[in-house]
């Protein structure tokens, strides 16, 4: 019963919500999109975006009368699905060959991200939510100090309580950040220095070449050192489909080496890493200053937190709330274990 009332309220809200009034209430609201489509037909798109929209992305738009955008979403879904099937076929056919994987794994990841994004876009578009979202300022261009406390559980490590400090200085064309993650007993330390240069910045694309060094050490005598050079792509496809305008995702491609030390000796394990990646959606919308909701998949193999099953899935979910120069971030990551953190910081 309660669910029924909630659904009716949501649907009613969806019908009566006026995107323009939303924008006018926002603290720093952007100029809303002026769309010629009929708002009164949108509500019916919400259930269509779920059934059959979960299978056929764009159904919400198409069946609520916005056929052009719906068809574009369907085509994009087809393209993503094709890319995913093709790359997965290649991975399976070559049995994950170390030679082909550096190309095929990122391709599978990118296609998978695009596939997920077309469904998000369908839902966001028909619900009118895309109007209250904003691209805002990319996180690399922000300067802030952030402290957080994290609780960590996984299968093996005896490390549970972490104090984290992150300082970032960001400008339009480069950024530099230093992260320190200390386990409370001192048994594990992680230092990560990274910087990036903005190769390209446009309305639709932020492209960064990054360089970084990272040192992770535990009291068992294991030390990992990594040099990584991720390529950061922050892509906005609003030029292609209007409803994709305010939805964007990131994809990292990393290259690095790791050295493992054993009981203080200089022996090592060489574990080359190419194509570590992550993707997800970061949705920002104006609430006070703004609230950012993110969810994503991350795959890398030098963390305490490992992944599960196919593609070693580690998921990250986060909330970031900015208000008058202060920020608070809440993050939850889970794979073979989890990490939960909350923070306070300042932005300048």
């Amino acid at each position, binding site marked *: 019963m309660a669910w029924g009332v909630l659904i009716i309220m949501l649907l009613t809200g969806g019908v009566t919500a006026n995107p323009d009034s939303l924008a006018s209430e926002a603290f720093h609201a952007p100029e809303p999109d002026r769309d010629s489509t009929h708002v009164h037909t949108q509500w019916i798109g919400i259930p269509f975006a779920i059934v059959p929209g979960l299978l056929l992305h764009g159904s919400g738009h198409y069946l609520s009368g916005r056929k052009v955008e719906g068809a574009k979403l369907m085509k994009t879904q087809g393209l993503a699905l094709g890319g995913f099937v093709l790359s997965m076929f290649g991975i399976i056919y070559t049995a994950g060959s170390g030679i082909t994987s550096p190309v095929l794994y990122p391709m599978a990841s990118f296609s998978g991200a695009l596939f997920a994004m077309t469904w998000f876009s369908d839902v966001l578009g028909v619900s009118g939510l895309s109007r209250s979202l904003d691209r805002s300022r990319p996180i690399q261009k922000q300067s802030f100090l952030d402290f957080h406390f994290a609780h960590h559980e996984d299968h*093996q490590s005896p490390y549970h309580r972490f104090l984290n400090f992150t300082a970032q200085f960001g400008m339009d064309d480069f950024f530099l950040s230093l992260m320190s993650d200390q386990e409370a007993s001192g048994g594990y330390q992680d230092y990560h220095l990274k910087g990036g240069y903005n190769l390209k910045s446009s309305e639709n694309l932020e492209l960064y070449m990054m360089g970084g060094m990272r040192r992770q050490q535990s009291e068992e005598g294991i030390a990992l050192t990594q040099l990584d050079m991720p390529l950061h792509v922050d892509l906005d496809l609003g030029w292609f489909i209007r409803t994709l305008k305010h939805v964007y995702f990131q994809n990292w491609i990393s290259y690095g080496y790791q050295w493992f030390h054993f009981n203080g000796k200089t022996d090592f394990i060489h574990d080359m890493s190419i194509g570590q990646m992550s993707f997800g959606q970061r949705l920002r919308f104006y*609430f006070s200053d703004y609230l950012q909701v993110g969810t994503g998949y991350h795959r890398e193999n030098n963390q305490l937190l490992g992944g599960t099953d196919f593609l070693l899935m580690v998921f990250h979910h986060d909330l970031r709330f900015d208000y008058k120069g202060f920020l608070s971030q809440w993050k939850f990551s889970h794979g073979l274990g989890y990490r939960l953190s909350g923070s306070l910081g300042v932005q300048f």
Partner: protein
Amino acid sequence: MKYVHLTLLAIALIPILLASCLNHPDAERFNDHQIGIETYEQVAIEVSHGPLIRIGSEFFTRVQAPKIDLSFQSTNPESVTVAIHLSNMRRDSLPKLNPDRGTLTRIGGDTVTYSVVIAPNENISVELDNYPDRSHYRFGVVGDVQSNRVAGRMLAESARNYNLDFFVIVGDLVNQPEDKEWGWALDFVKQFAVPVYVVVGNHELFGDGYKKYRQHFGKTNYQFSLAGDLFLMLDVADQSPSREVYHYAESLLENDTYDYKYVFTHVTPVDQYGNRNNGFASSFHAARFLNMLQRNNLDMMFSGHIHSYKEYRVEGVQYYVVGTGGGIQEKLDGIECRFLVVEKKGNGIHVEKVDVPCPVYPF
């Protein structure tokens, strides 16, 4: 009204979040405790290695070690006769009984029947040893057959030429854990004509794989000793040793009375091609695991999962990735199916690579 949109957004995210949280198979990882235990006529029966299935008044087990213990604890005021059919036994001779209690009868192929009369309220423990008084052995190791019937037949045929004592399959014996594949697997392992001991792989665990695997093969973490050496089979099929598996391994490897120590897993700790992540999910944990192995003087570790042959050595420990036994071959490396023959002779351990031109599968 903005709250409506926030709520809508949250609802849209719920299926994704739920889907991402669903799969936590690790709770099953060390749930071996009730395997190999049954009760009959007020007699608690336990088999140390293998499942114990009761059908009516008959008991069946597939033995997963060269030497096993059977224990019977009776609270029955009357005498009880128990007969257990044991498969996957050595074919050329009956095992030695210690103490010499009960009778052994070969009923064909790799199966013998052990019958014993339990006196009223009696507790007895009997050891069945397939290879008594051995100071040497020769065994084969292969991985990832993945229900490739043709390749499996060729492997078994080739293995029979090496006069092996037993064979180890380091996971992914089946491709999909369905009844027909389990049926094939149980028939297939008989083709080796020697006992075959199995390690659990990720393909065995799809769906309710743990349950089915334990029904057919017993525990997912177990150990045995032969000729003074330790053979330790571990479940890291989900690309991570759980805390329990780690401590189980450490507690056994700490014992320095063994001449040689072997570990068998499906997944190798470190994949030399890190980008595809076919080693442990966390390389940090892999390094910790490698340190533990090195600290406890492990000699060799055999794994599968990666469908190509690899070997590496870290601080005195030799690691082998034995390659595919029929699963899709890793292209571009020029290696087809391969198994290893490991032999303990007077002057140490020798490892030989045996290539089998198995058919490409499934393409």
